[in-house]
């Protein structure tokens, strides 16, 4: 369960990543990695740079410097399409849904199913959407409505379904349960456990220390764009993680 068993090549190895926005070092020489079947938590206060870091991996931002290795090979990720080609799927904090389209259209956005004539096959997509939603949120029925008509939690389910549907090898979840009710949160936790068992690597960004303690194998903590440290969750307590987030110091290390 812990990094001690992580031998071989990591799925993802991000080395020395830097990006700044107009003088603000949003991510400053950060290195993180991720092994198959592992869940790595990304923690940090608001504005620490977590979303920015994973947006570099998902192709939304271009890093100023640093290197990304996927399965041991140098990867050149310049756009979301590139990331998808490496089987990296992302649930964005903002969900990134087109509000005027229905659930199925959002699920397949950019990867529509088409008929032999090359026309978009809405019925096939709705049918697939029904299958995956039945797994994630069995109460979900609003397949004909634009997602603007959905509740926050339902929208989040659609975003999760989109990331899970396409057989991701690497899954990035940026606060995936922020809007979910307790039952749906539980279902997402089960989903994470199940995906992990299938050998998928997951970056999980969360502000909920209990979730992180329960679901993650390792946790990387960021503060002001810098990496505070990465720890095995089994070796630390809630309080250790909290003090890393707040004080920016790694436990057990001489400050």
């Amino acid at each position: 369960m812990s990094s001690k068993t992580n031998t071989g090549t990591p799925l993802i190895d991000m080395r020395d990543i830097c990006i700044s926005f107009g003088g603000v070092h949003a991510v400053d020489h950060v290195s993180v990695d991720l092994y198959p079947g592992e869940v790595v938590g990304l923690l940090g206060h608001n504005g620490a740079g977590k979303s920015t870091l994973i947006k570099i991996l998902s192709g939304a931002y271009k890093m100023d410097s640093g290197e990304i290795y996927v399965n041991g090979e140098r990867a050149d990720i310049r756009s979301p399409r590139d990331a998808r080609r490496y089987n990296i799927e992302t649930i964005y904090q903002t969900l990134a849904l087109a509000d005027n389209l229905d659930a199925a259209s959002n699920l397949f956005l950019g990867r529509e199913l088409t008929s032999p004539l090359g026309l978009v096959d809405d019925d096939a997509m709705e049918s697939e959407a029904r299958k995956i939603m039945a797994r994630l949120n069995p109460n979900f029925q609003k397949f004909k409505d634009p997602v603007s008509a959905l509740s926050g939690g339902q929208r989040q389910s659609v975003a999760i379904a989109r990331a899970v549907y396409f057989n991701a090898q690497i899954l990035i979840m940026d606060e995936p349960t922020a809007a979910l009710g307790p039952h749906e949160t539980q279902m997402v936790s089960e989903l994470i456990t199940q995906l992990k068992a299938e050998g998928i690597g997951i970056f999980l960004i969360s502000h909920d220390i209990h979730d992180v303690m329960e679901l993650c194998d390792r946790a990387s903590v960021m503060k002001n764009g810098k990496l505070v440290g990465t720890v095995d969750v089994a070796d630390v307590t809630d309080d250790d993680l909290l003090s890393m987030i707040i004080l920016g110091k790694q436990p057990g290390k001489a400050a």
Partner: protein
Amino acid sequence: MSEHSATRNQPGLVQRFMRDTELDTRLLGMLGALALIWVGFHVYGALSNGFGAFLTPRNLWNLSVQTASIGIMACGMVLVIITRHIDLSVGSVLGFCAVIMGITQVWFLPKLVGLEHWSIWIIACVVGMVAGTLVGAIHGWLIAYLSIPAFIVTLGGLLVWRGAAFLITRGETISPLDSTFKLLGGGPNGAVGATGSWIVGIIAAIAVVAMIIMGRARRKRFDFRLRPIWAEWFIGIISVGAVVGAVLLVNAYPWPTGIVRRYAAANDIEIPEGGLFISHGFAIPVLILLAVIVVMTVVMNRTRFGRYVYAIGGNPEAAALAGINTRWMTVKIFALMGFLTGLSAVVASARLGSATNALGTLDELYVIAAAVIGGTSLSGGVGTIYGAVLGAFVMQSLQTGMVLIGFDAAVQQVVVGGVLVLAVYLDNLYRRSSK
């Protein structure tokens, strides 16, 4: 435009009817508004002038021809507005394309291939549409890759292309245009006649029925809820009825006697007692508009391109994160707008029989108004092709109607402007109540 949906019937029944037929209430509302305008002008004419001139084959046929040019461009403007842009330049680009086509067929081609050569109209059309597409692509590139707002780029375009059209012609009217080219503008010869119209009608009817049957088969394949059989029949009969009605209407409008006489003389036909009845049938520009509607509807609803247009309008950031190249899409959308403007220039200049640098002046306002009256939302993400075309019909109907009952141009402007604002207000109400 939603007043139509509130029928006097028992609400339960109406709701069930609407649910089973899956009719679009907005479409019904717009058709209702159009019917109201038509009947209103007809009755007004009958009461005040003693003659209702609106609901006559002659007027409705002319209305369809007059709507074609704006309607074709409105189909492109929908995409532009859905993606949160605007195109103020279409009127000027239309003039520019018309002038380019004019000089191609009047100044250049006759010297190369001879006057009235069969290929002239084809080359002229291609040149005009390529010019429009290029102009649109330039606009799109400036907007997408140099991040200049569409409002500014196309406001500049409004001046630039009108000026360019003048520089080319030096204010001269370019005529006479090629006689085959002129058929594309309508008129007695530029219509397909009774038999041709029946062929068009039968093809359309078969297409409607095929769509209903195929749609049902598709739903069966995925075990989705099917429309009740009676609802399928209802929709089928109404649609086929509308097609047949349109054919009967255009076939009920005869050629004027002067043209019949000339035609009879040229073809050695004896004109019988009481005159010879030769139907106009569908005008060619109207058929061009129909083709544009069909193709653009398929593009918007059944292709990736159309899906991405809506996605960009709904949430540009989400579209980009889904791997859609939003900049290149913008170039393509404006190029398409330019192409349709070129096509519209064919219709407009062919109808006029000449090309002038002033052709299409103020068209941008009518095209934008048509799209907006048709329910295209300026905040992006929402709009339909059929809505924009109906919007064009509403505006043209207002104008034609006011001409028929003798309102002068100033009053027409006041009314059309007022209707534009009112339509958007009603549309807002409809959206809020249907949330």
